[in-house]
């Protein structure tokens, strides 16, 4: 729409917008996170929702204990191999559109515990992550920055076209593989389809063909 016309109309008290903008504005202004803490980062997540940092300013103060009522999962803490199936299952239970913030070093890559035998090296192996925030734990300001980043991301989403988000594309999956304990490790070790999107630009990286073959034990 012509910007000058839009401004002229708004001076007359007539506000014009597109359905897309209105839809995105509504969604990004009332993101309901899941009450879901895994470890240390969860304490900072609680601190963010308290009076001093006041996450309510971004429309995200309604923490819901049930995944059916939430549309944002903040993976706040170390995901162990015992907990990973539950995290993915909770994500699958959330209704679309849904978003994920990986909070802290552990959720991104395993962090300081990466060398541990029981620690998952990043939750983005199993579920798509929208915003990563580094830190151990990230400060409340960092979590608020992640929120603002997520809001910008929601604002830029289009309702139609090839780059429309997953929830508007009937062919895209809304459920992801729930890993199970195998003989040695989690099976599968990663969601190959998802992992390839992240790593396709890294030459000989973890997303290349050889890496996708199952482990020979």
């Amino acid at each position, binding site marked *: 729409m012509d910007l000058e016309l839009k401004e002229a109309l708004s001076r007359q008290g007539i506000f014009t917008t597109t359905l897309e903008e209105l839809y995105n504005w509504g969604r990004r202004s009332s993101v309901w996170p899941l009450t879901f803490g895994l*470890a240390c980062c969860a304490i900072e997540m609680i601190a963010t929702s308290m009076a001093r940092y006041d996450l309510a300013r971004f429309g995200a103060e309604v923490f819901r204990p049930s995944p059916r009522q939430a549309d944002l999962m903040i993976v706040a803490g170390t995901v162990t191999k015992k*907990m990973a199936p539950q995290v993915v299952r909770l994500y699958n239970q959330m209704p679309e559109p849904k978003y994920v913030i990986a909070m802290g070093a552990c959720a991104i890559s395993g962090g300081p515990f990466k060398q541990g035998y*029981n620690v998952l090296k990043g939750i983005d192996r199993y579920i798509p992550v929208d915003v990563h925030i580094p830190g151990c734990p990230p400060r409340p300001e960092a979590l608020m920055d992640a929120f603002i980043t997520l809001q910008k991301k929601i604002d830029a989403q289009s309702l139609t076209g090839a780059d429309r988000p997953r929830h508007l594309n009937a062919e895209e999956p809304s459920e992801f593989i729930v890993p199970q304990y195998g003989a040695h490790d989690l099976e599968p070790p990663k969601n190959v389809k998802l992992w390839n999107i992240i790593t396709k630009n890294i030459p000989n990286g973890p997303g290349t063909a050889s890496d996708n073959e199952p482990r020979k034990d």
Partner: protein
Amino acid sequence: MEMIAPAAQELIPNNAAATGDDALLEISLGPHHPSTHGVFRMDVVLDGERVVKLKPVFGYLHRNHEKIAEGASYLASMPYTDRLDYIGSLTNNWAYALAVEKLAGIQIPERAEYIRVITAELTRLQNHASTIGFLTQEMGASGSPLMYSFREREKILDLFESLTGSRMMCNYMRFGGCRVDLPAGWLDQTRKVVADFPGFLDEFERLLEGNEILLARTQGVGVLSRELAIQAGVTGPILRASGVNYDIRKVDRYGIYDRFDFRVPLGEHGDVYDRYMVRMLEMRESLKILEQALRDIPSGPIMDTKTKIRGFRPKAGEAYGRIESPKGELGFFLISDGSPNPYRYRVRPPSLINLTVLEDMCLGSNVSDTIVIFGTIDIVLGEVDR
């Protein structure tokens, strides 16, 4: 009504006719549960609303702390101890530093001892404040009391941040002393926080103590007998709420705790209310210690000059260092074989050992009371699973 799951049958030895209205129901509380303080699971068998069997399931946050520490140098384990009980990282630092100091026979300077006492008591204040906030949240007072607690907690976290550079993961103590000296004006800031803290406690007591709901939900609920508490090895505020006078600050007098005048609050009944009250009173005693320590703190070095922290190789031997952490007896057991990393590294976590009496406290109570009883144990899963 075929409600009982096969697993529940096995859990109950003398299972009566599991049909009709007598049917037992097995439910799983957690690992995703709003009140389980992280990723903890209770497999509960219910007869109506009453708990007849409770099985705790751990391991959802097993981060291989001990195994990683056995492959790392003594210094490199210090930041990992922060992440054990992540509400009170400074007391964890102290317990580990104490164990290494015992192992290597290190004496620490006077000023460092005072700084350790001040930071540990501040940690106790913020831990107990947030525990009581979470406890009221679990009783259904959603939000407001926790906001009061976190308001005070933030003031103490500001002090930690200006001293150590981090709000939660302080990584501050070293074997032989502390990492950095106090910044300018820190003591005055701390004095101000300590002077204001009784106001918060008075406010909190005024809001909560006469509250009918709080009394009804806590008095006579989750009683832990003195005998069972001793037999199970329970420590910390829970043990003292059951009337046992056992505080490692008084028993061991580690550091310089013999110089301070403070009392150990004890409970009578061992119920949830006593555990709540013991924590409230302990905060007042911590304030007393803080006032004395802030008055007497000397100037001087903060590190033992003879200790070489990098390339640290204690001689072969073993040592157990323990302190009174906000949750109970936190101990580190180390075996050295003379190499740069410990041969065996073991944590004695108060949270895990206090959790062993959970079933005994919960049997016969309602599901809603189970959550409150669980809240008063005050566990942190980082420490339980390690």
